[in-house]
């Protein structure tokens, strides 16, 4: 396993309040990992620990940099300069900087030349479809545009990892769907590792390669899921059709079900489609599983 970050026995206390305890997991190079849990369970604290905004009370976060895995005495992860990006939940564009100036922040501080900065900014503005908006201020653009600029600002430094703290929660449903696709394309194209904190089960299922589920006080890991992506199948045959037709398919022996919830039709199994076998699972199936793992700890 090509790990990028190794988290072991991580814990965080604020005064007497135990927020996180015994958190251990690995982040694999290039994956999209979601940290899922109920509101207020300590997801953002975990993300802040990974980025190095906060010091852990106990445990270690090892980060693979240029010189391999590094661990500092002060328990802070030692990131190579400019190799991480952070997208916040709320509107995080600097209001007193134009769209262009926001994107330029990273490269400017990495000591890039003016022509290089101009090239990077121009390319990114084109990529996010905002070529004519470089001189606008954040309050002059829409919420979806702001989010695109925010991601572009992270990408300007050519980071290896992006941390996202409920990045799409402030967007309306339609914009959110568009931004999901847009962000995924940008990240996959560059092979960037992404860690996203969310409380939205469907969003995490849609975007993630793996989902770390945390809950409780102090929050502990309740499970790590690796959802089947159903790639290739969904496009040719809508997933909802599979669920509706599940009984029929079982009879025809085209779906070998390993797990089936009759009441909702939530399934996990193998679908034979055009002489190929695909592992399929409905989102309902994972949602039930996640809710069961979280239990009644928070909420």
């Amino acid at each position, binding site marked *: 396993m090509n790990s990028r970050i190794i988290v072991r026995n991580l814990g965080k206390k604020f005064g007497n309040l135990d927020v996180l305890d015994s958190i251990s997991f690995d982040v694999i190079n290039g994956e999209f990992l979601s940290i899922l849990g109920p509101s207020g369970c300590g997801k953002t604290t975990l993300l802040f620990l990974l*980025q190095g*905004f906060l010091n852990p009370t106990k445990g270690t976060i090892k980060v693979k940099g240029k010189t391999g895995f590094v661990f500092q005495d002060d328990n802070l992860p030692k990131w190579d*300069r*400019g190799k*991480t*990006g*952070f997208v*916040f939940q*709320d509107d*995080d564009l*600097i*209001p*007193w*900087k134009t769209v262009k100036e926001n994107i330029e*922040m*990273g490269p*400017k*501080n990495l000591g890039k030349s003016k022509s290089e900065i101009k090239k990077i900014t121009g390319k990114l503005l084109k990529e996010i479809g905002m070529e004519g908006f470089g001189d606008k*201020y*954040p*309050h002059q653009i829409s919420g979806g545009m702001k989010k695109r600029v925010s991601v572009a*600002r992270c990408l300007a*430094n050519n980071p290896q990892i992006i*941390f996202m703290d409920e990045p799409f929660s402030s967007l309306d449903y339609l914009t959110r769907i568009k931004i999901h696709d847009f962000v995924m394309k940008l990240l996959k194209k560059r092979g960037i590792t992404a860690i996203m904190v969310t409380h939205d089960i469907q969003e995490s299922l849609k975007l993630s390669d793996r989902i770390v589920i945390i809950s409780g006080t102090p929050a502990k890991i309740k499970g790590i899921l690796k959802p089947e992506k159903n790639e290739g199948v969904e496009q040719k045959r809508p997933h909802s059709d599979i669920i509706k037709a599940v009984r029929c398919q079982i009879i025809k022996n085209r779906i070998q079900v390993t797990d089936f919830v009759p009441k909702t039709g939530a399934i996990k199994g193998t679908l034979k489609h055009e002489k190929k076998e695909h592992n399929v699972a409905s989102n309902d199936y994972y949602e039930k599983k996640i809710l069961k793992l979280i239990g009644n700890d928070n909420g």
Partner: protein
Amino acid sequence: MIYGIGSFLVIVFLWQLAGMIFDLNSTLYPSPIDVLLAMLDAKNLFSDIAISMARLIIGTSIGVVIGVACGLITGKIYFADKTFGQVSNFLRFIPPLALVPLFLIWFGIGEISKISLLFWTAFFPVWISTHIGIKNIGKRFILVAKSLKVNRIYFIKDILLKGSLTYILSGSRIGIGFGFSVLVASEMIGAYSGIGHRISMIGYIIVLGIIGLIVDTIFVMISKKMTPWRTHEF
């Protein structure tokens, strides 16, 4: 602007009319025409304006620069806020006008006393505005800068100072406004030149008002140019 000029002209007209109707003593109650003629005769008008404005600009500028620096320190460093900040909080409640005689005794009748008073007047509103401005910069913006590993100079200049610029400008505007009162008071008591020295003439009072209006208008124009991102009016 048209409404402003119009109201000004109406007041002048009523003033002139009152003088004519009630046949007032022009020495005690001069009409606008009397004032205008007297001002045209005043030999030192422009040199007085220049001297007063120079004092105002120098004293206020020093107050703004030091006020911003102190606001930056108390706004960002907890220890400085709890020590120096508390002392300054006590000092800012001492009205500058109460210090006019004291400063004249300490620093003499020359320029130092007046500039020191103007510094004192501008310093506190600018310091407190900068302090509040720094405190009001969203935590997420500080974290964005941290995540992008911006250097210290960039952080101070582009995040802290620029982020609190609207507050700094508001504080400076208040400082300039108070500065006019203190300037006149100090020039009335201890000066041989300046608008305040000759403020007993009604014409000079009017000139002072007009200069104040011009300075404020220019200041607002510059402020707007400096903060194109603001979503509120000055």
